[in-house]
């Protein structure tokens, strides 16, 4: 079956718009699309989307993470060996993280990381045939926001589509929440979110707000945030009494 942008696609559907383009422009096929000879097929079920100028992809629901180069992920350190850490990022294979891939780390000055610690890292190598490799520094050797996450935060998992939704620049969720609460959040593309706020109640409230955003339309997020704000105020006043 032939489909066009905005339609629900099923694996095996051919994308009509791309095959009919005659202009000499570069077309980028994102996740969920593959090319066979002159035809573009979908290989995942979801909604076909296009971003200008010509990037096509299938917006699909998924829970299992498949590593992609350059994405930020939240991982759990599971193993320490002589010069690398093994990090679980929820993919089919554990990722490796060199102890030199931290800001200011040298052979003598090793980062202080224990098994069970959380790290927010970037995928340097992610190919289907190779073990994924993480780094906690950017190309200038600076840490920026990457690195170890403190253990007084809370980690929870959600679907990959929710992560994409909340990290979308147009998503009002974090801005809304930040109006009344102070919090830190690290959202990994692998469906793991780490949150830390001033109190435990606030942390739980923010986690709830993020999870509730999955089934809320963009317009409903404002109401969702104010609801959470109210509940939080009520419980806090209850605690004081």
């Amino acid at each position, binding site marked *: *079956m032939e489909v066009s942008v905005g339609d*629900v696609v*099923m*694996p*095996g559907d051919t994308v009509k718009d791309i095959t009919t383009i005659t202009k000499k422009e570069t077309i980028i096929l994102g996740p969920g699309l*593959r090319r066979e000879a002159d035809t573009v*097929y979908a*290989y*995942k*079920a*979801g*909604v076909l989307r296009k971003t200008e100028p010509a990037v096509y992809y299938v*917006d*699909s*629901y*998924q*829970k*299992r993470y*498949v590593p992609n180069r350059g994405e930020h992920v939240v991982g759990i350190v599971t193993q320490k060996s002589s010069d690398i850490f093994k990090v679980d990022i929820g993919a*089919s*294979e554990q990722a490796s993280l060199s102890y030199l891939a931290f800001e200011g780390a040298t052979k003598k000055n090793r980062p202080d990381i224990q098994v069970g610690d959380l790290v927010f890292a970037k995928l340097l190598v992610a190919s*289907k*045939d190779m073990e994924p490799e993480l780094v906690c520094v950017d190309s200038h050797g600076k840490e920026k926001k990457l690195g170890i996450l403190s253990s007084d935060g809370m980690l929870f998992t959600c679907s990959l*589509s929710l992560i994409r939704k909340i990290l979308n620049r147009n998503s009002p969720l974090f801005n809304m929440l930040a109006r009344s609460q102070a919090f830190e959040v690290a959202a990994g593309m692998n469906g793991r979110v780490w949150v830390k706020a001033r109190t435990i109640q606030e942390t739980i409230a923010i986690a709830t707000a993020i999870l509730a955003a*999955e*089934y809320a339309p963009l317009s409903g997020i404002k109401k969702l945030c104010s609801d959470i704000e109210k509940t939080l105020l009520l419980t806090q006043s209850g605690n004081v009494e």
Partner: protein
Amino acid sequence: MDTSEETSQSEYILRPMNCELNQLSMPDGSAMLMQGNTAVIAGIYGPVEAKPQKMIYDKASIEVSYSPIKGPTKVDDRMTEMYIKETCEAAIIVTFHPASAICINVQELEDSGGMLGCTINAACLALINAGIPMKFTFAAVNCMIQEDNEDIILDPDSIQLQEAKAEFTFAFDSMDKNVICCYTTGCFTETEFLKAMDRCKQASQYVFDFYRNLVKKYANVI
């Protein structure tokens, strides 16, 4: 939104189908499918790390386990597993996730005829839900030939099956509607076989439409 409107068009041909996706929280994708009173639940884990002895270096290995409603897995169930495995293997693009494993687990909930077809369809829906790369989707349709008047009955239930001379299960791919898998019981002639295949092929369109409507319904929510 309920699924009754989706099924209304197909109820004259196939038994009503109802499905709930992503009902289980642990698997990466799951589907609970009812076709008439036959019900199964399928859950997918994948791509996950493959066991060393089952690892294939250039493609994903597919492991299927089918559990009947009572008792341990028997020799009969190995056959069902083989059908699910080889049918899914034809659809999944195995080269996208080399050296990993995709585990398909199917649990029978109730059998009132057409079990094999129902498990194959549930596996397909669970694969869609898990976001496993697939070349095409597949739909299985059951039919039988009646003993006395040689009529073809599509998607029979267990009561109708008692009068079956022969029973067929076909799975078709969504692109060219060719036959992926074929399972038969009983004796039949070549013309009967081709007629049954043709009827099932036509009916498979309803299953594909059901899949698409279901994905549409869930895509709107997310």
